[in-house]
């Protein structure tokens, strides 16, 4: 511990802490602009300068490590005057027109810094040059006139997201934030995650959809969790007058620490489907609006007589629904109405084989945190950088720091360009390939644990021929993995869709062999699929949806999309009930349509891919005649004379989980 004095107050801090962080922890405020708690310090704006006794000049506290006996003053007259001067320099560098900037009036950190110093004006006029405004991006605008070159966006795009699209071109007064080699943002390598917009302290990067719609202090902020995929990023939903103005990543989020991807930040507010606002029943071939009473009674009267009938009812639910809703769904259809075909629309593709393997090896999977200091990451059968983008950020950002990447997949992807080794394998060869990798490691004596393999030589040959890879590539992969200190293996649908438990077992063996899994580390993770993929699997909702003449099909779709394949299968059923929010091919065929709440209009629990339970909160009120997903299922239960008692927290314990639940 280091002891120093700040403004006469004795402060203790760990060695290596900066003076700025030490001051902040001691409750002493130092104005900053380029600093951000999630980004590495840059020291560019100089606003955080402090007087250090014995130092020749004022020092930037954000990059100054604490020293024993340091005496720091943060608010002397010279420091105050210097801060005013620094801000004047910043304002006069570009054309900062406050009167009509949408962040002016409380949301601009630069302006607020000036207000903090009680500046009524600045003494030097701007240079009157015309900096470019880039409006080519679909979601945001870059106005270089308002940029203070703090590089927060550059640092976020690189250090947090690992995409490295943004950088600064030219030098001095001509410096500009550019994308790639100075191409329009809309044509760049930008993956539209919006993190740069979230970190920008001024109006240089602005969100097109929410601009001029409200100041931050006019918005209601609801903390929730994204239900776009199984990563479970924490969000802040900004609402005004029952309308979602903007979605932001929560910097305090346990999984994502402020990051979101396009699917979590922008897609949810870009809904183009038509909302259904009244229950409907098909009469004479046409869907007619009816009361809730009529709709629910009709459904109940159809379902109840089929209780216990083996081929009476088939039910399928979206995994975007909450744990409470999925539990009620399962209880109603599987336990009470005793249907033998009750599953989720994921049909266990991302999870079934993993949960089956967990019966032998409970909680064998690790947590996402393990990616933070992985020195080698193997991605097999997963397009994580597209399907679960924020999880991908967690290791992409470490690649320039030396983390190695291996990809194994039949298809090519952008991830291959960043990989040390990219194996393009033939479909269905995964088992042979994984055994081949094990064999090479055992043969070379590189295994961390003993593994008995009969005839390693032929296993290697089989791997090479079945997968269509060269021995050199296979060996390189094996060597990279085995020689790593903290390897992590990620696998996804490419593996689990084959529904072969043996694949998971062999991956587990490989993980143990290379030290990815041992008594201390669990560096093996399955990516799973949608928000409540894991919950659905633990509830047993992970079988294939193969209709066998069932008379009634109940689709609890919520706000999810319905695939062509599901539509084809459902079209063969004589009677279809659709519990859904939007018009779709499903509602075109449905006999009863029950309009329900979408993701922001309901609350419930979600368990992400590494076992973390989080809760989504209701942010807006649903249209008047729309009912909550869980409520609808309970009302059907009442009308079919069933009492529902299941508690989701107990219900998910009926099967062993592949990852520790907390």
């Amino acid at each position, binding site marked *: 511990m280091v002891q120093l004095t700040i403004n006469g107050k004795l402060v203790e801090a760990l060695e290596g802490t900066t003076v700025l962080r030490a001051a902040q922890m001691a409750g002493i405020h130092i104005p900053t602009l380029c600093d951000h708690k999630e980004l590495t310090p840059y020291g560019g704006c100089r606003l955080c300068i402090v007087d250090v006794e014995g130092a020749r000049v004022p020092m930037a506290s954000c990059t100054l490590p604490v020293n024993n006996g340091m005496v720091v003053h943060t608010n002397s007259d010279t420091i105050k005057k210097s801060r005013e001067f620094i801000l004047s320099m910043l304002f006069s560098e570009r054309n900062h027109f406050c*009167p*009509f900037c949408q962040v002016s*009036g409380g949301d601009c950190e630069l302006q607020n810094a000036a*207000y903090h110093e*009680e500046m*009524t*004006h600045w003494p030097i*006029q701007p240079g009157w040059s015309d900096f470019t405004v880039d409006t080519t991006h679909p979601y945001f605008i870059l106005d270089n006139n308002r940029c203070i070159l703090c590089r927060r966006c550059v640092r976020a795009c690189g250090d947090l997201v690992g995409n490295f699209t943004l950088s600064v071109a030219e030098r001095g007064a001509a410096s500009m934030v550019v994308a790639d080699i100075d191409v329009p943002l809309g044509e760049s390598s930008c993956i539209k995650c919006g993190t740069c917009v979230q970190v920008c302290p001024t109006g240089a990067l602005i969100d097109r959809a929410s601009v001029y719609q409200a100041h931050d202090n006019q918005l209601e902020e609801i903390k929730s969790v994204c239900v776009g995929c199984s990563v479970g990023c924490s969000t802040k939903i900004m609402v005004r007058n029952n309308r979602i103005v903007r979605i932001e990543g929560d910097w305090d989020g346990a999984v994502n620490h402020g990051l979101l991807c396009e699917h979590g930040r922008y897609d949810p507010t870009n809904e183009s489907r038509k909302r259904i606002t009244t229950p409907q029943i098909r009469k004479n071939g046409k869907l007619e609006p009816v009361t809730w009473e009529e709709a629910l009674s009709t459904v109940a009267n159809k379902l109840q007589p089929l209780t216990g009938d083996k081929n009476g009812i088939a039910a399928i639910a979206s995994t975007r629904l909450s744990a409470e809703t999925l539990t009620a769904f399962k209880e109603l259809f599987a336990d009470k109405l005793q249907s033998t075909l009750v599953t989720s629309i994921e049909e266990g593709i991302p999870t079934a084989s993993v949960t089956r393997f967990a019966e032998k090896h409970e909680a064998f999977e690790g947590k996402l945190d393990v990616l933070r200091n992985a020195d080698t990451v193997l991605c097999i059968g997963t397009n994580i950088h597209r399907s679960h983008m924020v999880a991908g950020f967690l290791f992409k950002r470490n690649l320039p720091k030396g983390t190695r990447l291996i990809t194994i997949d039949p298809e090519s992807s952008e991830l291959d360009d960043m990989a040390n080794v990219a194996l393009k394998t033939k479909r269905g060869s995964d088992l042979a390939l994984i055994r081949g990798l094990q064999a090479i490691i055992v043969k070379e004596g590189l295994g961390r644990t003993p593994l008995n393999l009969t005839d390693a030589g032929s296993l290697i040959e089989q791997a090479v021929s079945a997968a269509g890879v060269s021995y050199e590539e296979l060996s390189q992969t094996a060597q990279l993995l085995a020689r790593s200190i903290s390897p992590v293996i990620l696998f996804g649908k490419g593996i689990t869709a084959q529904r072969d438990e043996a694949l998971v077992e062999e991956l587990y063996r490989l993980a143990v062999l290379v030290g990815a899994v041992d008594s201390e580390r669990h560096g093996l993770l399955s990516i799973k699929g949608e928000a409540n993929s894991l919950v659905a699997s633990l509830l047993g909702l992970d079988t294939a949806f193969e209709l066998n003449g069932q008379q009634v099909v109940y689709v609890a779709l919520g706000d999810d999309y319905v695939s062509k394949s599901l539509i084809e299968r459902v079209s063969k059923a004589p009677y279809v009930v659709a519990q859904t929010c939007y018009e779709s091919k499903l509602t075109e065929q449905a006999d009863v349509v029950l309009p329900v709440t979408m993701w922001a209009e309901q609350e419930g629990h979600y368990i992400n891919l590494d076992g973390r339970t989080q809760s989504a909160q209701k942010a807006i009120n649903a249209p008047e005649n729309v009912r909550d997903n869980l409520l609808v299922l309970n009302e059907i239960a009442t009308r079919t004379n069933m009492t529902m008692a299941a508690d989701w927290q107990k219900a998910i314990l009926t099967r062993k989980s592949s990852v520790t639940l907390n």
Partner: protein
Amino acid sequence: MSLLDMDERILKIVELADLRSTPITDLKEPDASGVDVGVLEGGINNTANEEVAHKMRDRAKILVALGDCAVFGGIPAMRNFCGAEAALKRAYVEAESNEPGSQVPNDPELATMTKTRAIHEVVPVDFNVPGCPPDADVIFHVLSELAQGRKPDLKDDLLHWH
């Protein structure tokens, strides 16, 4: 207009201070005997504005620049991106509403357009009061403080540049 937004509070100001000249009273400028406080709004756009600024500075013991145009140059300052000549040409010659053959007025009695500047770039200013516009509370605060012989201190809710 924003001055009048303070509604009946203006009566309190008039109790303490003598309003010698305003754009809407008979006397438009302070006379040679001078005033204690001169409030000038608007930026410096042409040579006539320069003269007014100098006159106000000479005749007012305390000069207050009121509003974003006076303090920063304001919206008219956007013309500095293209320059006075191009702006005049656009307005008087090129604009779709002009009759063909229109010319930029060049009567020698007219003031010449200059680069738009804040008042403090032309004469020293004692108090800058930003805002677009400064709201009634801000203007009332500034005038009442000055009328009572104090320096107006703009901060928190009274300090805004928009």
